[in-house]
């Protein structure tokens, strides 16, 4: 065991021991939160890095590495029975690296089509367009009914093909084009009357291969891609990437930039929560609430526009600080916004929170237990609504979060209403943070000088921040070039769809509930389809 960072411990084990070690860590050492699994192609071997954390001791991070030398038929043991979130992560690695996970129940490709040739994240991947041509005619519908799996019993491998749905089930294709999936998500749901019996999420309709693109982009170029992951908390994602690069370069942003970044992050969080709140209300049929949310968000967009020129894609954080100084109206407008938003929050509660129909709808559905939330990796407001302390701003305060006083909102109910109201309460906390910072922005430069061509030193760098949906993580593996060797983003939204599957298949959950639960988890699809 070697220590290469203050609180990240790294353990490397051979592939045979990986599962045992993982099980030991999970059961004996209480590493109950699988933050992310990063797939790696080391050139000679293929491997994975498990980032593990503890809910009781959230600042502890342990990275567990394992690899296999067999490039033709790489196989590792699945840990999906230890952490529920491993289910999607392992499918993603199978899709990109071709590593098959033994005992995983559902070894389908997650983002790419099942007939895609090659594994794009391998270093020897051939991107020749003739291998995977862009089809110009009507395509045959993909097989969505079956899923393969590999199991190992007594050292004997057996391959199986499961059918996901029976022939006589009433299956509805919910999406990819649907008004309430918040993007291009495709849920195949099996219905018994109005009651949901099975859900099978399909991703990848707008997958852009951001992580693959990163491997050929320089670091400042990658910044522009981060805004486009979770577009509603774009600045926060970008902040994470900047922090990660700054950590690697061992530079620190000037205090002025740190304050500005924090304020901008919190404004983004408010804007995102307003959209999240509004679209959840709209999912329940209250269009007016959505409009109210948009109206208030518009004020924040105006503030962003004045300072950075961008409204949704703010493009403001750069490595070493922020792109330019704030506009002279910035402080005044933010100060005007705080009392305005407080007043409007009251109105939002008045319009919707106390509404008997809304309360009736949210009552008694969508229970997510704390243990399940941790196992699924449902971070952010959705996890905090189940009583899980997972706010990175409190766990490892980055930027100016250690200088401000705010509460981490925790609800113990785990019900839909908790997830609903926690967003409105977090808006209030964000206002508190901004209030404390806005008058104290230090004078000085807003950007540390960096070299024209940024080369990160060799090594692995990891940074996580709290975006509006949960823990967003950046993993950079650098070989000292001007482009990274591998970049992985930990999307908080991806696992939230797993949480949706979990809570929406509870007994007596109806179609109308599914939509509302999706709204209550507030996932953003471009973050899933990276």
């Amino acid at each position, binding site marked *: 065991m070697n220590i290469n960072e203050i609180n990240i411990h790294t353990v490397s084990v051979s592939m045979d021991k990986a599962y045992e070690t993982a099980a030991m860590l999970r059961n004996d050492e209480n590493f109950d939160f699988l933050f992310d699994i990063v797939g790696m192609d080391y050139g000679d071997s293929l491997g994975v890095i498990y980032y593990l954390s503890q809910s009781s001791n959230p600042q502890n991070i342990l990275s567990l590495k394992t690899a296999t030398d067999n490039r033709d038929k790489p196989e590792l043991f699945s840990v999906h029975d230890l952490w529920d979130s491993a289910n999607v992560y392992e499918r993603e690695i199978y899709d990109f690296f071709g590593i098959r996970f033994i005992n995983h129940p559902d070894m389908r490709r997650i983002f790419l089509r099942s007939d895609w040739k090659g594994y794009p994240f391998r270093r020897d991947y051939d991107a020749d367009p003739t291998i995977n041509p862009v089809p110009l005619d009507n395509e045959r519908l993909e097989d969505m009914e079956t899923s393969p799996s590999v199991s190992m019993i007594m050292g004997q491998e057996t391959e199986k093909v499961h059918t996901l749905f029976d022939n006589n089930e*009433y*299956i*509805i294709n919910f999406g990819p084009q*649907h*008004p*309430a999936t918040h993007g291009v998500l495709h849920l195949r749901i099996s*219905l018994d009357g*109005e009651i949901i019996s099975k859900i099978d999420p399909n991703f990848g309709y707008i997958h852009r291969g951001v992580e693959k693109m990163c491997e050929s982009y320089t670091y400042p170029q990658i910044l522009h891609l981060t805004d486009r992951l979770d577009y509603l908390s774009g600045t926060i994602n970008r902040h994470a990437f900047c922090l990660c690069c700054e950590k690697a370069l061992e530079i620190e942003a000037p205090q002025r930039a740190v304050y500005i970044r924090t304020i901008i992050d919190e404004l983004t969080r408010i804007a995102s929560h307003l959209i999240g709140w509004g679209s959840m*209300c*709209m*999912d*329940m*049929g*209250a*269009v*007016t*609430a959505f*409009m*109210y949310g948009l*109206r208030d968000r518009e004020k924040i967009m105006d503030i962003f526009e004045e300072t950075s020129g961008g409204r949704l894609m703010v493009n403001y954080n750069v490595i070493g600080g922020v792109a330019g100084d704030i506009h002279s109206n910035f402080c005044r407008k933010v100060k005007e916004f705080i009392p305005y938003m407080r007043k409007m929050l009251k109105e939002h509660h008045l*319009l*919707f929170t106390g*509404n008997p*129909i*809304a309360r*009736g*709808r949210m009552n008694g559905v969508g229970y997510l237990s704390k243990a399940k939330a941790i196992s699924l990796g449902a971070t952010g407001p959705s996890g905090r609504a189940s009583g899980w302390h997972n706010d990175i701003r409190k766990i490892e305060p980055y930027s100016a979060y250690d200088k401000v006083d705010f509460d981490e909102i925790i609800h113990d109910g785990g019900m839909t209403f908790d997830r609903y109201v926690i967003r409105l309460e977090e808006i209030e906390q964000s206002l508190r943070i901004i209030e404390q910072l806005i008058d104290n922005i230090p004078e000085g430069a807003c950007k540390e000088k960096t070299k024209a061509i940024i080369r990160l030193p060799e090594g692995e760098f990891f940074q996580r921040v709290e975006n509006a949906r949960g823990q967003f993580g950046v993993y950079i593996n650098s070989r000292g070039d001007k482009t990274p060797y591998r970049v992985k983003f930990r999307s908080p939204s991806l696992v939230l769809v797993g949480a949706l599957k979990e809570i929406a298949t509870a007994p007596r959950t*109806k*179609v*109308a*509930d599914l*939509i509302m639960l999706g709204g209550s988890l507030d996932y953003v699809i471009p973050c899933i389809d990276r």
Partner: protein
Amino acid sequence: MIMQIDKILRIYLGDTWALLTEFVLIGVALLTVYAVLALILIYAERKICGFFQCRIGPNRVGKWGILQSVADMIKILLKELIHINRADHFLFRLASFVIIAASICTFAALPFADGAHVIDFNIGIFYLMAVSSLGVVGILMAGWSSNSKYTMIGAMRSGAQLISYEISAGLSLLTIVILSGTMQISEIVAQQSEMWFIFKGHIPACLAFLTYLIAGHAETNRGPFDLPEAESELTAGYHTEYSGIRFGFFYLAEYLNMFIIAGIASTMFLGGWMPLHIPGWELFNNTMDYIPSVVWFFGKTFFCVFLALWVRWSFPRLRIDQLLNLEWKILMPICLINLILMTLVVAL
């Protein structure tokens, strides 16, 4: 003037043909009013909804956007009718006509003004309830024949919803029938010349008015009862697969049904075209009579329409089990008790 037209027609065409011509003329007049009202209602809804949501609403076509719904009507007329594979085409086409026919039949029974009343016979209320419930047949047809799972769920929801809420709506109207002792609509309006039924009928009438507004609102499939078309769940519910003017028929019927429910509510409870009269206040009553009866009718009806819009743009949607609970466990018992109360009020 109408009498003169009648006389002239009878002189030139003879009795039978004159009657037939008059039928056609009245039919055309009704359809025109129907279409124009739909345009006004659509414009009003979009504008009022805009104000509710802190928006301006349509403001580009014509002054204050008043020609917006005309432009939209032209657009919808020009749109392509999309052919649905493996749909039951006969029922698919028939459905939109059934819906619009049911809606127009109900519409024709409304007393618009003093004397402007097309269908009026001694079982008027019975007729109203009968034809207004025909619409559900069209909705079920549309949902079934579209060959889509979304429309099917929408149609099934709608069937359950309309059949349930018909009971409350019917019982609330029956309360007024007990009070007035007649089913003839013109007679009901005439009886309110002294005082509107909502004042005359004490608490039972007020209760019946409220339950009728709720049940009627549910019958029009509009929010918070818009489960059959629940946009965020079923995209557009039973009319998902319709396009062009066939969709336009559904759209038209939806808005006119809202008007019809409001019209019935104002006729039964708020005196229809009857001006506001307070017994003993002769001068006041005479002044009120100067306002034309058609203004009274449309004023009251649009007031009820506004209530419907207000509710629609404030409340989230109910879930199907809550919807049925509300009807069978709350509204219907209230209506039944209310009916007994009204009988007591009348008997004593």
